[in-house]
């Protein structure tokens, strides 16, 4: 076998394409492990790699590197940065959305809180006004000159209650079961002189339960006053009653 023949055999053997008697011969040479064979094999693998590397150039897909590194439990540097940027971006977006939602929520909460505060303020004002009225009513009731006039007793429909009259302090109306008013309506108190026209004595509202407490402050001429009445009037009241009275409390006999 010439050196050229040996190189041929080694090169074909290294390619894995040797068969038949030549393969048997080559395997025998390899078992003998001579230096010439070893050198020929080293040359053969280099030559084969060089020839094989002349394949047409192809661009591998970019994902291949990532897949490969992922397979060994690593990521590309680019991938790492991409992940980091993706994470940072995601966090920023989440933060922005959260901030917007939070601001929106805070705005809503603030608006709700302001409304609640306003409602509380209104309720407090009403309570204070109610308290003032109640205190005034209590003082009114404590006055020895105050007289009581009942109304509605025996009537088939409400309301019922009492009218307290004090010649120096005025008239206090305490009524229950007042009828619910529709929009744009109010109760109006009238002081009706004997043989005269009703005199407007102020407008008021009942609470949700239909209870009304109204104090008309001012002197009342008990001798000339025939009755105290309540009608339903348009908001702001009327100069003269425009509806049938729902309460009439005669002062006769006081």
């Amino acid at each position: 076998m010439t050196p050229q023949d040996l190189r041929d055999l080694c090169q074909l053997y290294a390619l894995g394409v040797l068969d038949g008697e030549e393969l048997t011969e080559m395997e025998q040479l390899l078992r003998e492990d001579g230096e010439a064979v070893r050198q020929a094999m080293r040359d053969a693998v280099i030559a084969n790699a060089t020839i094989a590397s002349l394949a047409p150039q192809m661009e591998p897909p970019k994902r291949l590197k990532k897949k490969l590194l992922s397979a060994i439990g690593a990521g590309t540097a680019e991938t790492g940065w991409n992940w980091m940027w993706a994470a940072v971006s995601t966090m920023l977006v989440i933060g922005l959305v959260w901030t917007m939602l939070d601001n929106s929520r805070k705005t809503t909460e603030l608006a709700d809180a302001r409304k609640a505060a306003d409602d509380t303020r209104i309720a407090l004002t009403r309570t204070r006004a109610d308290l003032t009225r109640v205190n005034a009513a209590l003082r009114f009731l404590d006055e020895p000159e105050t007289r009581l006039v009942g109304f509605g007793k025996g009537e088939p429909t409400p309301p019922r209650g009492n009218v307290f009259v004090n010649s120096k302090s005025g008239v206090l109306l305490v009524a229950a079961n007042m009828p619910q008013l529709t929009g744009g309506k109010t109760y109006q108190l009238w002081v009706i002189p004997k043989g005269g026209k009703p005199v407007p004595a102020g407008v008021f509202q009942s609470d949700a339960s239909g209870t009304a407490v109204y104090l008309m402050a001012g002197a009342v001429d008990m001798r000339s006053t025939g009755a105290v009445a309540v009608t339903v009037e348009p908001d702001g009241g009327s100069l003269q009653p425009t509806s049938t009275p729902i309460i009439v409390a005669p002062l006769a006999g006081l």
Partner: protein
Amino acid sequence: MLFLFPLVAAVLQFRDDADLIRRLQARDPNAMAELYDRYGKLTYSLIYRVVRNEGVAEDLVQEAFLRVWNRMAAFDAGKGALGPWILTVARNRAIDYLRSLDGRLSAGSVELDKLEQPKTFERASDRALEMDRARALAGAFKKLTDHQRQVIEMAYYEGLSQTEMAERMKQPLGTVKTWVRTALRALRDELGGVTA
């Protein structure tokens, strides 16, 4: 066949593989990334030339690099030729795939695994893989006759034995062997001292 010198040169011009080999042996993932940067394109090109399928080529490239990664401990950083080893492993994976498709894993075939042991590549120089040599090699390939080029391509990119080549080409085995040897010697002549 299309020859691309820059590809060969770019991939095979690396002279300092020793440090890379040591880092690969230390299981440094960055070294694997560097290895791919050096040889990924050439490996993919070679495998694709054999299997002609992008998806299969991707899988086989991955398999080839993982095989190198897992066998790196047996590679001698001071003596081994990394590029030829990787190309050999890559080609063998592709040829194995072709043979499995064709049912050519016959008893008479050489197991390609045996041909890619790291020890085979020790003390082998990859000087042959330099750019000027690659250019000369491509020139020599062009000078081959059609039959010679055909048998070389069948050997390198299809893994056919000379007997199989003869059957496919419907030529006497002796004639095919002559074509193969004439072609190999012409190419080796271009590779000069490395394979002399």
